[in-house]
């Protein structure tokens, strides 16, 4: 088995996650110890700690509770629930109680949009929160009941498949695809994937066969295959389902890729929010080793050695970007690399690396087993096959849906029983906001490409709240590397806040547009390039929701001049008209 050496610096992040779990923070002396044993500087390690949301330099409470703060959680009342828990426990949100019993905070979408509102307690997901459940949590915490003894139903994550098509209707037998690949050869497998037209399901849609070919053709002593299970796009949870129900498929897909590119080692990069899946996934890996599907001489083929390690993320959306993910795998801050070179030529440890999404790898295994015609039996010419969608928000049947590519949005809305729909956010916060006039558009790489997030908003919703939520999300998740994204996301948040409270003028909307297009054009990576999408789409497709909140003046100062004089009035004890500015000073 290939495992990372304990004292390999690329193991830093995994070591830090272990320390965080053991000590509820990273103790200072542990940093010194790590610095010495890994040969890294103290500042470097602190830099890594401060990059990941789930790592902390000061202790968290015995119960560390993070409420998922996606817009769909909020629409289900998560903010009120969090406030209720805060007042029951006597602790402010964002703080640790003085007796160190509990910490309360919000976190980015935890991938439970079909069963929210959701929270994480010491990394374990709690779903379907209600007032009753919150009261139950408060009691369990006050009584200091160990997490292991909490009622199991709190932690139940259901599968929730609402629609199946070719992929989810297919049976799958572990090992068949690998066997076929060994019999027919790598070239035949690549040809099959090419003919099937499999494209990356993370949203970018790059040809899978082409990616594998590029990697295989790059001269190198080592090559790696990485499964991107950092499903962080707000509102998506289909990978959670695949990891929970069909992990064998994706491990088989990784093994196929290894056979094609000649990798001996692979990684599953699992987002920290899905840590509860770590145990079950490791069991499946172990089973595959015992069945000769991983390890030395796979299926008896001499020289075909391949194994898979699972690496955890620690709360950083940017690590879903493939080159940031590789940095994170190497134990560093998840800063996206300059590309080219792309990971297929220079990836993990500088070696050629294939990074594929969970769904892509699972589909590759199925195509190897079922054949080209099976895959092409649905979908469009440019987007063959089907797509898993994570549907949440205002509909009667949220959950996992498998639809053939080419399906119109209206049909999807009918299937999930969404009524009086005002808009759909497709592709998550970084995706597109679609008004009813465009519901005839289709799910396809040539029309609406998506990683699978599908959030529905009915006519009773203030869309601006969703736009504000996504904009704050990007501010929180920006890595801070490049100017337009680092400063731009912070400015958009402030500027939109001005609109939200009714202080903005038309000039402020112009500024939002200008900043947004600057970020789209000049940002270093996809995060910054798409971070303004919610605002830009909103301004273009729903201008009224902004206009209706504007002040009628053309200019509005950034702060209230009269209110700013309050301190001076208090000091001088004046409240006469002369101490006030008429009309707030405008």
């Amino acid at each position, binding site marked *: 088995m290939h495992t990372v050496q304990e004292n390999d610096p690329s193991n830093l992040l995994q070591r830090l996650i272990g320390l965080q779990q053991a000590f509820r923070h990273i103790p200072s002396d542990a940093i010194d110890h790590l610095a010495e044993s890994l040969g890294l500087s103290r500042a470097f390690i602190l830099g890594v700690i401060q990059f990941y949301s789930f790592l902390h330099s000061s202790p968290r409470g015995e119960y560390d509770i993070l409420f998922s703060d996606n817009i769909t959680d909020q629409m289900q009342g998560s903010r009120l629930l969090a406030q209720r828990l805060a007042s029951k426990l006597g602790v402010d949100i964002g703080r640790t109680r003085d007796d160190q019993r509990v910490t309360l905070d919000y976190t980015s979408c935890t991938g439970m949009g079909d069963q929210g509102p959701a929270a994480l307690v010491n990394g374990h997901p709690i779903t379907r929160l209600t007032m009753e459940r919150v009261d139950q949590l408060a009691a369990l915490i006050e009584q200091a009941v160990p997490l292991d003894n909490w009622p199991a139903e709190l932690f139940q994550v259901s599968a929730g498949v609402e629609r199946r098509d070719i992929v989810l209707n297919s049976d799958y037998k572990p090992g068949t695809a690998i066997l076929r690949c060994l019999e027919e050869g790598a070239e035949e497998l690549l040809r099959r994937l090419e003919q099937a037209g499999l494209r990356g399901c993370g949203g970018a849609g790059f040809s899978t066969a082409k990616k594998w070919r590029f990697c295989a053709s790059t001269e190198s002593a080592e090559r790696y295959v990485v499964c991107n299970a950092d499903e962080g796009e707000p509102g998506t949870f289909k990978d959670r389902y695949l990891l929970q129900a069909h992990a064998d498929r994706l491990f088989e897909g990784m093994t196929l890729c290894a056979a094609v590119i000649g990798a001996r080692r692979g990684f599953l990069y699992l987002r920290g929010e899905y840590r509860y899946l770590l145990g079950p996934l490791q069991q499946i890996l172990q089973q595959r080793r015992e069945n000769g599907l991983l390890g030395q001489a796979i299926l008896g083929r001499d020289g075909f050695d391949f194994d898979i390690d699972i690496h955890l993320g620690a709360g950083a959306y940017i690590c879903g970007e493939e080159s940031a993910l590789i940095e994170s795998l190497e134990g560093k801050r998840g800063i996206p690399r300059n590309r080219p070179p792309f990971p297929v030529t220079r990836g993990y440890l500088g070696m050629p690396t294939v990074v594929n999404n969970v769904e892509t790898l699972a589909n590759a295994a199925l195509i190897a087993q079922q054949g080209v015609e099976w895959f092409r039996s649905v979908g469009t010419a440019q987007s063959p096959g089907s797509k898993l969608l994570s549907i949440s928000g205002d509909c009667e049947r949220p959950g996992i849906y498998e639809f053939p590519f080419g399906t119109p949005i209206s049909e999807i809305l009918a299937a999930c029983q969404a009524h009086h729909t005002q808009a759909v956010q497709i592709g998550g916060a970084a995706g597109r906001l679609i008004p009813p006039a465009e519901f005839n558009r289709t799910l396809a790489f040539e029309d609406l490409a998506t990683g699978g997030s599908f959030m529905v908003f009915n006519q009773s919703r203030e869309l601006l709240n969703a736009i504000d939520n996504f904009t704050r999300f990007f501010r929180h998740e920006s*890595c801070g590397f*490049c100017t337009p994204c680092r400063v731009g996301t912070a400015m958009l948040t402030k500027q939109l806040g001005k609109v939200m409270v009714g202080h903005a003028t038309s000039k402020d909307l112009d500024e939002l547009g200008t900043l947004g297009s600057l970020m789209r*054009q*000049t940002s270093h990576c996809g995060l910054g390039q798409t971070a303004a999408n919610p605002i830009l789409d909103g301004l273009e497709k729903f201008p009224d929701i902004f206009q209706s909140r504007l002040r009628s003046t053309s200019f509005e100062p950034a702060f209230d001049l009269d209110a700013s004089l309050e301190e001076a009035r208090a000091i001088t004890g004046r409240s006469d008209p002369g101490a006030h500015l008429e009309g707030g000073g405008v």
Partner: protein
Amino acid sequence: MSGSFSIDGVTVPFETGQSIMDAALAAKIYIPHLCHNPEFQPHGSCRLCCVTANGRTVAACTTLATDGLEVANETHEITTRRRLLLKLLFVEGNHVCPACEKSGACQLQAVAYHCGMLAPEFVHFYPKRAVDASHPETIIDFNRCILCELCVRASRDHDGKSVFNISGRGIDAHLTIDSPSGRLGDSRFSASDKAARVCPVGAILPKHRGYEIPIGRRLYDQESISQVGDVASHREQEDG
């Protein structure tokens, strides 16, 4: 291998492996930049050098020159964009040009003038940032740091000390110092380090040498940055 491409219609030769920025510097064509210094690995973080190459926006410092490439650099649209990026940097930090020791020899100020930025447009963040005066020879004013990571690269790749690092994320990203206390005075930093001479702004300054050259007679007071280039290269000449 070599070839040629064009920048704003001017033919520029290049050797294989050269970036658009490398080739432009060699041809004495100015592409505004802050985080780039030819002595170090290209970074691509300030985004000021973004040009359009065959219509696509790319950072000149991290994009390889290719034969026949048509690069647009100083167009109205690109300069407007640069001015906006510069304003963002001023919004983010606390840059008080009239009171800054680096005024007139500051690349941020000089590029801002070059791009026609004459007044602030946005509400500034006014972050609370500290000054680190713990080192006997050098002072660090974090208010002026623009996160170009030149000191990080110089200390790591040239001095072999890795004194500087970046910590935090997003708008909270900030420069840190590797020492038990986190202060420069307790680090392995020395005023003779390369890292002491690469800061394009007034974030890393020598102590005991204030206003040796009067304001008005400094590098960029004499000539535009588009003519005289980076302040760091001039410092190397003076010191060397």
